Each structure stands twice: as C-alpha cells, then as structure tokens.
C-alpha cells in the first residue's frame, strides 16, 4: 500500500487502525474542524460531532483540544448498545447503523468523550437516532449512495482522503489516519520540539 495516512497497516496489504491525535501545542481553537465537519456532512444544528475544549482560558497554560469520537479499540458504546447497532470496521472505524439504532442513549452514558449526539427529532422532544463522527467513512448504506450522504455524510475514506476536520486543520494540530503512521509523526514532532531540527513531516 502506498505510504500516507492509510499507512502500511498491521497486516501486509491491510489498512491500519484509524485514529485521531490532536496536538494541543498547535491547536489554536479556531473551530475550523468543527465547522468543516458540520458543513461537509450537513449535520443539523445542535449536533456536534466534533468539539473544541479549552482549559485555563485566558491564563498562561491555556490549551485547546479538538475532540470527537475516538474510535476506541474496545468501544464502550458497542459494549452497552442493546440494539447492537454500533459496529467496528476492519480499519478500526466505529460506526452506528441508524436503521437499527433505537435512540436509547446508553452509548452516550458509556462514552468517556461524550461523542454520541442525539437530535431532538421525535414527539415530545424525543431523541432521534444517534449521530456521531464517522471518520468521514459514511455508514452501512451503499458507498456514495444518496442514503449514505443523507444519513451519515460524506465518505472520504472510500475516496482515499483524510476526514474533513484533519484535512482542514491549518496548523496540522489534528492528525487522522493509521495509528502507527500518525503516532510516528506526532512522536517525532514532540521529540524534535525546541531542538532546532525540523521533523520530516511538519
């Protein structure tokens, strides 16, 4: 496989595990990732697949991080879902099947990051089905179909592109792709920080 965000992968010829890393030294809380995701996937207002969280606001030590579904290796959401609507792909991306989802919300209670989002879609403000970051990999509907676009948003992974958020980040604080590849990029970045040496990929 060609090098890049989709890396050599764990097994020969297979895709590695997809992950996000947000470099808090570089994140300037511009929220570009948040808006790019919403615009590109036509997410309804009120749903935040991605958020920027800032600590120590206005004080030295102010830092920001961009958080979305982390596509955990052992997803707690998958473990508690009574409808078994959440599944994990071979490439590690965790997705929800909106046809199966019953909107009970157990996944939100299980998630450490608060990734599952629910629109107020039903009667008496009932929760609609769960929506969350798809790593821009669409969903269980046929790839590039109208249904996939409507329910889940873009499928950039199938096009060989990185998710919108990471692609949009100007300071390259947000990295997305094969865990091995981006860990290496990030580790090299941190190791060379302050040393006067430029990392291979800035």
């Amino acid at each position, binding site marked *: 496989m060609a090098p890049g965000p989709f890396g050599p992968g764990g097994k020969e010829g297979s895709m590695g595990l997809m992950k996000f890393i947000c470099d808090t*030294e570089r994140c300037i809380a511009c929220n570009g990732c948040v808006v790019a995701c919403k615009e590109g996937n036509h997410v309804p207002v009120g749903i935040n697949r991605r958020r920027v969280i800032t600590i120590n606001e206005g004080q030295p030590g102010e830092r920001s991080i961009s958080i979305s579904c982390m596509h955990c290796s052992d997803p707690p959401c998958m473990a508690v879902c009574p409808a078994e609507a959440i599944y994990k792909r071979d490439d590690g991306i965790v997705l929800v099947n909106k046809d199966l989802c019953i909107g009970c919300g157990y996944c939100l209670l299980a998630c450490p990051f608060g990734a599952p989002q629910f629109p107020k879609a039903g009667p008496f403000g009932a929760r609609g089905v769960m929506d969350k970051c798809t790593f821009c990999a669409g969903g269980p509907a046929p790839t590039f179909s109208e249904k996939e676009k409507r329910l889940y948003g873009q499928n950039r992974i199938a096009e060989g592109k990185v998710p919108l958020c990471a692609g949009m980040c100007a300071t390259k604080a947000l990295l997305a792709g094969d865990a091995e590849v981006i860990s290496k990029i990030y580790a090299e970045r941190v190791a060379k920080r302050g040393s006067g040496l430029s990392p291979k990929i800035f």
Partner: protein
Amino acid sequence: MKKTLVGLFGLLFLAWGIEVLAEVLRNYGPLSPTDTFQEFAGTVLQDWPTRGREFLKLAPSFKRYFLMVVLALPALFFLHFLIFGPKRFSHQGRRVPYYGAFTRVLHWTAALCFVFLLFSGLSVLFAKDLGAGSLVRTLRFVHLLAGFGFFGAVLPLFLIWWKEMLPASYDLSWFLSLGGYLSREKKPVPAGKFNAGQKLWFWLATVGGVVMFYTGFYLYRFEASVSTLRVYLIIHNALALALTAFFLVHLYMTLFAVKGAFRSMINGYKPLEEIKYLHPKFLEDSAP
C-alpha cells in the same frame, strides 16, 4: 579482572545515563504531552474513569437478570401450582362489596398501562432480538405514553388505598407463613382488607412507580448531566427488574393461586368465605 569489572560497570553506568538523558530530551519543553493530556482529562472525561467504568460493568448485566426472572419465576409458579394447587372458595354464599367502580377502572387502567410499560421497556433491553430499528423506536414512544397513563391512574389509586395499605402488626406473621400459600389447608391468615403481600406490591408499584416515572422522564429527555443519567439508568433498570418479578407474582396470585380473584376485580365483590379465610381482619374492621 578488576579492570574488566570496572570497565563493565562504567559502561552500564554510561548506558543508564544516556537513557535518562534521552528521556529528558524526549520530554523537552515546559510541559510534556502526557502532562497536557492529563490536564485535559479532568475536563473531558470527568467522572468516567470511576463511575463510567462501574456503569460499563453493570449496564449490560441487566439483560441476564431479566431473562432469569422471566424464565425462572413462571417455572417456579408452575411447580407451586402442581404441588399446592389453587385456593378455592365457594361463590354461592354471600358476597361482600370490596372494590368500588372507580377503583376498578383505575386499577385496570393502571394494569393495562403497566403491561404496555413492561413490554415496551423490555423491548429496549432485548432490542437486538426484536430486530431493533423503527419497531423498538415506536415502542419507546409507547413506553412514554404508557408511563404517563400509569402515573395518572396510579396516583388516585394511591390516594384511595394508601390508608388500608399501611403496615399492621400482624403483617410480619403473615409473611412468616407466607400467607398460607405453602399448604393445601384452608386456614385463616392474619390480614386486613389487603394482606402483607398485597401491601408490599402496592408500595412497590406506587412509590416505585413514582421513582420510575422520575428517572424515566430524565432518561427520556436527557436533560441532566451524564453522571446523573448513569445513576438514573441503573435505578430505573434495577427497579424495573423488581417490578417485573413482583408483577409476575401478582399475576400468578390473582389469576391462578386464588380462584375468582380476577372476577372480584371485575365485578367488585369478594365471596364471604374467601374473606373469612384470607382477610378475616377486614370483617372485624368493618363490623358495625
């Protein structure tokens, strides 16, 4: 020999020194990434590392317990029926008015709603087996409506019955003999209008029902913190388990264990003989 030993130690020391230096250089800067992420953890994860993990252990286990209750209890009752059989009382003799018309309407409304609540609630836990999707989503909405219906019916029912449901001194001895249901004999048991078992069921269904309504309302709206909602869900499921178990008991008692009990709740009368044996204190209390 000495020289080689010294040289070896020197090399080891050097290696250790390089290791330390590398570690220091790796974390060059005022704050290492690990420290930064730990700073974020408090804000981002909040109480997930403790409460969240507990929740993860508990939440998936409820399906198991429900299955056990729903399968084991009926089996037990079937066994009981075979061994002890039902209590029969003559319906030819005098009948005493026991349940008013309004009371019966309330009871059956609450009962109907409760059945809907039970099935629609279980459909969430067993969603996978029902094919999930729009069926269960609809049932969730039914759960909401039935919840309001149940609450609306059980509240006046509570106001009507609560005095007669208060615990009495003889309730303990009723429990000790399990209301006489573990024998084929027809013996009078210490009970007023309602026996201790019925009282227990009443309080569970009403007070428990209020708790179910409260926690259920928040679980429907999700307008509380995730930490709170986790606690509410555990309470809701645990109480649901207790209510399901007791409901099955209630069903067995009223449909099988005491012949004619079902009809009593329809026409409002209980046969005098039944009262003499099963609710003797009721006659004393209501005697002119």
